[in-house]
């Protein structure tokens, strides 16, 4: 389509602007040319390869759906055997290992809450009248056999500072205490409330303490300050455990 006025001017009245009218015809035919009119729809059949490809995908999808268990069963929320097995070469390693001082103290703090808290208080300071403070007590922080004997048998009469508190007796706490419990609570008290011996009472030491306590001359009676000083001023026998050894926090055994 060339310039609007070059040829074939329409034969029209003079009142009509020929340039304008022809321009309109040009633009409309251009617009019409751009709008394609389609009367019919294609009637080609579906190609075979499309049917085949869709069939393959249907098979894959069917396989996936076949694994879906009972359809519309809203009660089964886990697939059987869904939980993954161990990795090849992986073994059950139990809970994460912790250093001994932390693990023993954590165990001991539970025992303390159950057995000691009532009298000595959650801050270990007692009340100064009926119950003595555990902080800085020499029987607590000196050789660990002294502390073990008091916990297991109780104590009567004056204590390490020569004073007598309340009725003058602490009942025995040893009943039902396992070596792990005793080791934990001793480690906890010796490293809390301002005490900081920095060492761990091992489970083996605690076991020996229970044996020693049972073989005392006056087994079954409370100890006295004199007996502590004369018979138990030594360290508990048994292998020591360094405070930074890695142990299993559940059963306080060594982690290799």
């Amino acid at each position, binding site marked *: *389509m*060339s*310039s*609007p006025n070059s040829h074939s001017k329409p034969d029209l009245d003079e009142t009509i*602007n020929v340039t*304008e*009218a022809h*321009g*309109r015809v*040009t*633009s*409309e035919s*251009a*617009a*019409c040319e*751009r*709008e*394609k*009119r*389609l009367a*019919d*729809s*294609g*009637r*080609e*059949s*579906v*190609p075979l390869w*499309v049917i085949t*490809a*869709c069939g393959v*995908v*249907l098979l*894959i*999808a*069917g396989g*996936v*759906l076949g*694994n*879906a*268990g*009972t*359809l*519309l*069963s*809203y*009660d*089964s*929320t*886990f*697939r059987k055997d*869904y939980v*993954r097995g161990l*990795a090849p070469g*992986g073994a059950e390693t139990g809970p994460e290992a912790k250093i001994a001082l932390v693990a023993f103290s954590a165990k001991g703090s539970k025992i303390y809450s159950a057995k000691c808290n009532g009298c000595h208080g959650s801050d270990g300071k007692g009340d100064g009248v009926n119950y003595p403070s555990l902080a800085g007590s020499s029987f607590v922080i000196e050789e660990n056999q002294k502390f073990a004997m008091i916990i297991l048998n109780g104590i009567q009469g004056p204590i390490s500072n020569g004073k007598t508190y309340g009725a003058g007796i602490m009942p025995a706490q040893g009943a039902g205490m396992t070596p792990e419990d005793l080791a934990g609570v001793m480690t906890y008290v010796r490293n809390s409330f301002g005490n900081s011996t920095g060492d761990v009472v091992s489970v083996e030491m605690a076991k020996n303490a229970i044996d020693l306590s049972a073989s005392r001359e006056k087994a079954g009676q409370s100890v006295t300050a004199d007996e502590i000083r004369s018979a138990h001023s030594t360290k508990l026998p048994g292998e020591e455990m360094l405070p930074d050894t890695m142990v299993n926090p559940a059963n306080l055994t060594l982690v290799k």
Partner: protein
Amino acid sequence: MSSEVSQNLEQDAVLRASIDRSLRHPVMFFLTSGAAWLAVSIILGMISSAKVHSPDFLDSCGWLTYGRTQAAHINALIYGWGFQAAFGVIIWLLSRLSRQECRAAGLILAAGHVWNLGVFVGILGILAGFGTGMPWMEFPSFCWPVMLLSYFAIMVWSLVQFKVRPEGHVYISQWYLMAAMIWFPWVFITANVLLHVIPGNPVMAAGINAWYKSSLLFLFFTPVALGTAFYLVPKVSGRPIHSYSLAQLGFWSLAVIMPWAGMQKLTGAPIPYFLPYLGATATILFFIPALTAAVSILRTAIADPEIASHSPTLRFTMAGIVGLVVMAVAAVFLNIPGKTLELSQFSMSGYGFEILALYGFFSFVMFGAIYFIVPRITRREWLSRRLIKWHFFLSTYGVSLIALVAIFGGLQQGIGQEAFDQPWSEASQRAFPYAVLITFIWFFIMLSNIFFFMHLTVMWLRLGRRSTHPTLLVSDHHGSPHGEDGDIDNAGSMTASAH
């Protein structure tokens, strides 16, 4: 040519011109502001991708952390660009297909501003830290009723036009577009009410969220793009749809299969366990509606290879449909439980698939539609075929690379994540090179869309070429390939009101 036919043609042209004129302002508003949001989204995407491999980048800026920019990126892409492009294209196509002028352009334009305000407040809310943390629904929860109302105000007029259309055949594009218009409010209301208004079990909430994402892709963006392609390709090539029965099979399989998809993202979560498997099955079956639609569209388009390569509309639309085929193959490949589903569940692969769907398929068809619609409603031709070519090549190579790199990089990352006795950082290290590449490629896509946005803005300002010849992508020419320039607006009093 008899005078009756020529009179019909003229009436036809007048009707088309009046439809185009009635929709000029709302359509141009949706397309241009959509393109602006696309640019914003890509910049946010670059920042969030950079954070994957260089966490120190912009680390002094609290509102540009990964969790916020990634969410803002994908939400700007969906609600800022995707929906607005869809609005512009749907209202124009349905007016043309129902042969009705739009009588509510002012209201649609106003509702479009409200929608934009909703998106703007939502993005600011995400960046300020008020996001909800639900993928694709991160906008603060007060946004959704506003967006829903403006959606109805924009879309209801097309339903009215359909109702009062001249009697006759309902074309496949109308099926797709009307279905998308009705499915979206169903999906949007269901998800938002169940998550924001009457929240239930939080595990099931994650499942509803995954279904929402999948439904938005397969029940809104897919039918909108397919309906558009089924209109554009026969219009430009001048040939009827290759196989209309195949096209109908595509529509009905999409309608029946896709609402089931989505929950495969929760495989292994404590929800009724047939749901993830059903979701995986439906997503794999997306191959059937996708392939049938793609075959009938592509066969129509390549019937005339010259038109297919010269027309910007056809080129973009065909690239988008090729993107759909790749997406359909990826849907099969990425969703096989026990093999690839675990690897794509928590890795970059999911993102790669989403970008492939939103950009490689949907956006390309929208670009094709924009290159078709804008000259008709502005009565100006595109200024520069070079800008169109750059837009096409940078976008095509860019999105192919991003999809490829993110999907395969994500599988590598997934293998790292599955090795659960190894430190998590090893999974990140596996993803590192792919993340660097993605940032780099986003840069080129951003460049291509800056060209596009500039070009579109120039058209909006009616600074396009005044010509009766469309801008085609031909290069071997002497002088202008578009023929002589003429001023189509000087065509007399009949078109003077187009100003």
